[in-house]
């Protein structure tokens, strides 16, 4: 049975991804700051903050003991804060960078170590269309995801020798907690900038992620795939 690590599995896209891979006979190791919201014999949960280096290392060591190696990693955990730059506290900036950038990096580093023996590791990071669209009100969120894209491209090169691919998926707005509270006229204006003008769905994200995870995708790395026709 293959093992996939998914961060941020308590709700939203992360939970849906975990349920999808469990239904497809994967073992899933999930994490969130709170308790598990998934009950399945092939699901193991770690309550941690993805930017807590010691906790991430401890999770990796535990996975090594339990399962020996890891086949895939989905760096889904992320936070956003929609606000004008002049009204964004430094504390919020740090929190977003810690979770989105530091958390993604730590999981890439630790899980890549556990993928070495498989010779077919897969890492999928999460970015956003807010970065290519330069969305107002999302300066820090978009900047943090720009960093994730850069990490993706460089780690793709550094980890290629270990036969690990590193790619990123950039969803459009999806009806999850992340965009709750965004005014509808803002949302309509955003959708108008997509080639395909509708809200994204979790299944759109699963489809793109699964494309990168497939064994046949071993010649695809360092790519960023935006949904909805954004580029």
């Amino acid at each position, binding site marked *: 049975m293959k093992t996939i690590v998914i961060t941020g599995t308590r709700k939203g896209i992360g939970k849906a991804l975990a349920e999808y891979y469990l239904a497809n006979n994967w073992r899933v190791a999930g994490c969130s700051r709170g308790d598990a919201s998934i009950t399945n014999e092939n699901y193991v949960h770690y309550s941690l903050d993805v930017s807590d280096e*010691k906790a991430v*290392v*401890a999770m990796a*060591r535990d996975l*090594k*003991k339990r399962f020996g190696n890891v086949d895939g990693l989905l760096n889904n955990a992320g936070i956003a804060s929609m606000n004008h730059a002049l009204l964004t506290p430094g504390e919020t900036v740090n929190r977003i960078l810690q979770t989105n950038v530091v958390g993604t990096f730590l999981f890439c580093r630790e899980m890549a*170590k556990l993928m*070495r023996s498989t010779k077919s590791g897969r890492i999928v990071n999460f970015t956003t269309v807010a970065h290519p669209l330069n969305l107002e009100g999302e300066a820090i969120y978009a900047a943090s995801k720009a960093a994730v894209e850069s990490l993706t491209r460089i780690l793709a090169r550094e980890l290629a*020798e*270990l036969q690990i691919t590193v790619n990123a998926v950039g969803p459009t707005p999806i009806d999850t907690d992340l965009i709750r509270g965004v005014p509808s006229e803002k949302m309509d204006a955003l959708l108008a900038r997509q080639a395909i003008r509708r809200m994204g769905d979790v299944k759109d994200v699963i489809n793109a992620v699964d494309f990168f995870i497939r064994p046949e995708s071993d010649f695809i790395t360092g790519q960023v795939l935006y949904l909805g026709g954004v580029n």
Partner: protein
Amino acid sequence: MPNRSEIEMLVIESVRLLADDFEIDALRQADASSRLYGTDGSLDSMALVNLIADIEEAVDEKFGASIALADEKAMSAKHSPFRDVSSLTDATKERIEA
């Protein structure tokens, strides 16, 4: 707490296993004096990355200690702790005891 010779054995064993995997003939029979990385060393940067990860895992498995060999101290050291088996053993011991 493991003593120095136990740690040295773990380091040598890790180097030998890596040498088999990476087909590095010069290190298949590694001993306490083997050069690893840098001048006269036989490891390239990718092999070194693998060796460090292997030793960190082995230390956790064998001695139950969670260490990071590639920490800021190692990166800024005047003499790299990764240059030979002896310096790597000392660096591993220091971190287990920290």
